């Protein structure tokens, strides 16, 4: 999809989507989650490739990592979405799975894919502040 072909879809006034909040909207028949992560906007398809859950209704969390056993370190506050079914984690800013470290796909998952586990990236969409409105571009 080229930028020229994209169309803007208003979501809400900027003031109604403060940092740490989300909105779930339906655009062109697609359910899409729109997130404000500390002043930056992100949008991704509200469907988990694993079991079809409403991914964007999951918990927004930090990325937990470790440099060695028995240590816990949080990074990238609020940039991870944890699916409400089975807790698969995705990078909210890119749509990439955090569970398949070496097999990230850049193509979107095909509708009705027979092997959902092979699809590890959620479709993402550009979001901008357009004259005081949060706008998703599809």
């Amino acid at each position, binding site marked *: 999809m080229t930028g020229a072909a994209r169309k803007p879809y208003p979501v809400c006034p900027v003031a109604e989507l403060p940092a740490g909040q989300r909105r779930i909207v339906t655009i062109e028949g697609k359910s899409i989650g729109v997130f404000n992560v500390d002043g930056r906007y992100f949008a991704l398809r509200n469907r988990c490739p694993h079991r079809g859950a409403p991914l964007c209704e999951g918990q927004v*969390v930090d990325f*937990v*990592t*470790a*440099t*060695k*056993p*028995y*240590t*816990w*370190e949080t990074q990238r506050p609020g940039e991870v979405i*944890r699916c409400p079914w*089975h*807790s*698969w*984690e995705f990078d909210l800013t890119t749509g990439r799975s*955090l*569970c398949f*470290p070496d097999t990230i796909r850049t193509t979107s998952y095909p509708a009705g894919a027979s092997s959902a586990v092979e699809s590890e990236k959620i479709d993402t969409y550009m979001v901008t502040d357009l004259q005081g409105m949060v706008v998703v571009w599809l």
Partner: protein
Amino acid sequence: MSRIPESSPPVATTVRWRAVDTDVHHQLRDISDLRPYLSRYDWQRLDEYGMPRNSNLYQANGGFRGARADCFGAGNNVDPRTRLDLFQEKLLDGCGIDAAILQGEYTPAVMALADIDFAASLCRALNDWTLAEWVGRDSRFRLALTIPIQDPALAVKEIHRLGGHPAVVAVYAVCGSPRLYGQRYYDPVYAACSDHGLAFALHFSNEGIGMNPAPTAGGHPSYYAETYLLRPQFYQAHLSSLLFEGTFEKFPQLKVALLESGFGWVPAFRWRADATWKSLRAQTPWVKRPPSEYIRKHVRFATQPFEDPEPAAALASVLDGMNADETLMFSSDFPHWDFDPPDAIARRLPAGIRDRVMFETALETYPKLSR
């Protein structure tokens, strides 16, 4: 004066490997075998009270007293586990085994002993006796060290004492344990294994004994058949612990051999472990890779008791699902009653992985074997 043989035993000069047997079981003829290897005091108490037993309950087994009934030619009171000549005749020569790794029949009882210093004395004596009387008499034998794993500091001392011996290829522990083996309490043992290039060989026994949890996850079964059938539970529990505690992140050279665990469960365990990790990764973030990848790299399974899947074609999918070309190693369990001979096992394997299973993976898992 060292009681260990001063010189290295001659290494078998096999031109081409045929089979490595990763699990055989020998035994003392009598406690007096240990007398030369014990201090005067330790010998006096062993002489007075006898060897520790690994059960205070009636303990059933299979076959005849747990062994092959056809191995009692010297009389019912001569335990075939005590007869080196029988190992040579029926296993090493008879079956064409180039190297057989001894996991002592005596080991479990010593590991269930609460008196850790006496346990450590017995371990030293048992290892020295085996190196002198078994390995010293036939270079095809190798030894998995008996260690007092109930006290890691003493266990580490024994690993460092003998870990450099050319015939010592592994450290032996049993599944019955007060703690799961991934817990950090045992880390010094894995560090010592890594220092000497020794595999950590885990074998059932001692479940439900002493301080150890029941012999099944649901409690104490009435019959030996149930204990036998349900053993994979223990291997799964320890394997899960090793994976999620990050043991293989801490000890990237460590190899763990699961002996007599069966292997039909491995593909399903891997699926479930990976699914669990995908969901709960953040709780143990040091587990960087799907568990199945650590298993492929670090964990090996022995063939005996070889499960004959039904329908027979299902064997191929089990072997495929566990990457058997990388993870499966032959074992006979000689002279136990559920012995598997190498020719019968080799015939069941696809030709493409036969050498891998019969000896190649063992040579990789126990790097000292081929030195």
